């Protein structure tokens, strides 16, 4: 596979038409770190949307192995004249309900994420944002209402290396985090929060009225893409909670709470069984953990950086 990569251009350096041709031929192959996705499509919209949200990824129009193969094709039937739609299928089977024809990207993202969550059971898949600094992982588990994607996006925009916004991919044998580097899906208010936080942010198009409301995808920074095959050792776990008007508050939490936040939000903790239990125990023992309540992103990040400098990698609980 490496032979195919050596002269690859960045996706945003390639004309939309050429990406479209690749999508109609053997597909576009996206190596996101812990998985390779291959997408084929005759959609008139997908090429530009992928180019806007995967700009720093290599343009790879052929490959040998992909973990997920998918197609996004215009829906057949009379409906195509009235309300055109796009259909997601994988390995010749339709998996999701169709989306409006001009919104193939959110369908691609949801479809691939669902397939990754179903299939990549050789790794422990936490539901968490993961970023790296000093070779160590900052893990932000997605507890309900955590605003994990907002904080993950903000940190990625302040120089933390993004590994993943959705899947905390933990290599069970090596006890290290791998990247699953896809765009960060921002929903509803968090879109405005992030554009105010960093006006130069690279956002894809706005998709209103999806199942999750309005969605926009933030592209992974170029450095994160270049380093997507570098793993990170377990570092610190933070359970974020955004609360309007709340001053930044850090509360240390015990290994038991940390264990529950990691294990019970995971995609395949139960499925893997004992090996997953051992891995999560290892993480909970070795990562100092806090609950963070905040309303001001800049303040939260500044205090996180102070905390990180004191604790990361010491393996000592606060």
């Amino acid at each position, binding site marked *: 596979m490496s032979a195919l990569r050596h002269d690859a251009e960045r996706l945003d350096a390639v004309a939309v038409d050429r990406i479209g041709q690749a999508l109609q031929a053997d597909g576009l192959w996206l190596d996101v770190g812990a998985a390779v996705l291959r997408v084929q499509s005759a959609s008139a919209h997908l090429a530009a949307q992928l180019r806007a949200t995967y700009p720093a990824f290599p343009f790879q129009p052929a490959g*040998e*192995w*992909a*973990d997920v*193969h998918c*197609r996004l*094709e215009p829906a*057949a039937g009379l409906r195509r004249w009235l309300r055109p739609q796009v*259909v997601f*299928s994988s*390995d*010749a*089977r*339709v*998996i*999701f*309900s169709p989306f409006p024809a001009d919104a193939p990207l959110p369908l691609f*993202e*949801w*479809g691939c*994420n*669902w397939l990754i*969550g179903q*299939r*990549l*059971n*050789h790794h422990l898949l936490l*539901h968490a944002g993961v970023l790296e600094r000093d070779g160590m992982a900052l893990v932000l588990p997605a507890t309900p209402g955590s605003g994990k994607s907002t904080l993950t996006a903000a940190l990625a925009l302040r120089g933390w290396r993004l590994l993943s916004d*959705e899947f905390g991919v933990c290599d069970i044998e090596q006890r290290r985090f791998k990247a699953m580097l896809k765009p960060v*899906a921002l929903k509803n208010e968090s879109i405005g929060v992030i554009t105010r936080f960093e006006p130069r942010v690279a956002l894809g198009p706005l998709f209103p009225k999806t199942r*999750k409301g309005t969605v926009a995808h933030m592209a992974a920074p170029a450095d994160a893409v270049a380093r997507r095959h570098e793993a990170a050792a377990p570092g610190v776990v933070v359970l974020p909670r955004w609360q309007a008007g709340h001053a930044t508050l850090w509360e240390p939490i015990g290994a038991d709470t940390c264990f529950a936040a990691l294990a019970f939000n995971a*995609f*395949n903790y*139960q*499925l*893997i*069984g004992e090996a997953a239990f051992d891995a999560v125990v290892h993480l909970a023992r070795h990562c100092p953990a806090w609950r963070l309540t905040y309303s001001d992103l800049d303040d939260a990040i500044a205090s996180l950086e102070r905390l990180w400098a004191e604790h990361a990698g010491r393996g000592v609980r606060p």
Partner: protein
Amino acid sequence: MNRPAPAWLTLLAEPQRAVDATLAEWQQTVRLARRLRLLGRVAEAVDAAGLLDRLPAPVQQHLLAELRASRHRVRALVWTAEHVSQVLAGAAYPRVLLKGAAYLAQQLPIAAGRLPSDLDILVPRDAVADAQRRLQAHGWQEVELDAHDQRFYRDYSHEVPPMRHPQFRLELDLHHTILPPVARTRVDAALLLARVQPSGWPRWQVLCPVDQILHSAAHLFLDAELRDRLRDLVDLDGLMRHGAQRPGFWPELLDRSRELGLDEPLALAVEYTSNWLQTPVPASTLRSLRQRGPGAVRRAWLLPLLDTVLTPADPDALPARSQDLAATLLLARYQLQRLPLHLLLPHVWHKVQGRRRNRDDGDDAF
């Protein structure tokens, strides 16, 4: 008609061939076997041969992932069956495991890596109401159905609506026979129940070995949905190979298929498994089934259709378009055989609409 099955299927019987396949061949195998629900069986066969770590890294990863997934499903099935067994412990009638659960309880070779979907059990018809009552008292509830589906299950089906329990992920399908009572092919459940055997799990029984084969054949060849059903042929192949180790197996199978009125599905099952999967079937059995199975005229139109729908679509194909016409024709044929026309047409219409409505929308986590 002499279409062989995909080459990778030979891995189930000869896993040592796993090390010869190229990465590109594995890519196709993994994609297709997963869709056909056979990847777990491939993974268990390769693992049992001790060859997993000699395969290319991405193949190892996907096979390991599938081993975990299928073993997890098996644990869930065993747990569910144990629970249901306790719920029905006081009942005086036999409780019979069907299909996947039965293969597991008997520790048949085909159970290794076979991905179970539901727990299928059979009780005598006059015991269904009692079994339902006991299950409901322990938190099992019928899934919500619209009025049409409720009427269909109550009046015309061979099972009651599937039941769910908040603690268990698998659905429970409670059957009282193996074909719908309105089908033109009828199976007398009393004949099946007269020959049930201990299963290996406490308080559960299984159909006798030849009945398990006939059930699997009827289930495949009298069902409406034949696409991606290669796994059923693989099951039948494994059941026959296993059964044939016992002397007198083939004559017993033929006698029983006549007794139960299942000659045609058995003839088709033997025809396809021997042609596609090289199941060793004695020549006398083949001859006898040729006479009893579908006649020349019927074979001339039926077999090409079956070939088309049983051959799995290429993973790179557009979903299901090529096979749609053949599949629809077959669907009509089977539904016609099963249901009187005045019931069939509204039912097919309802199913087509339902398929549009109930597409799997996956997980809501994203």
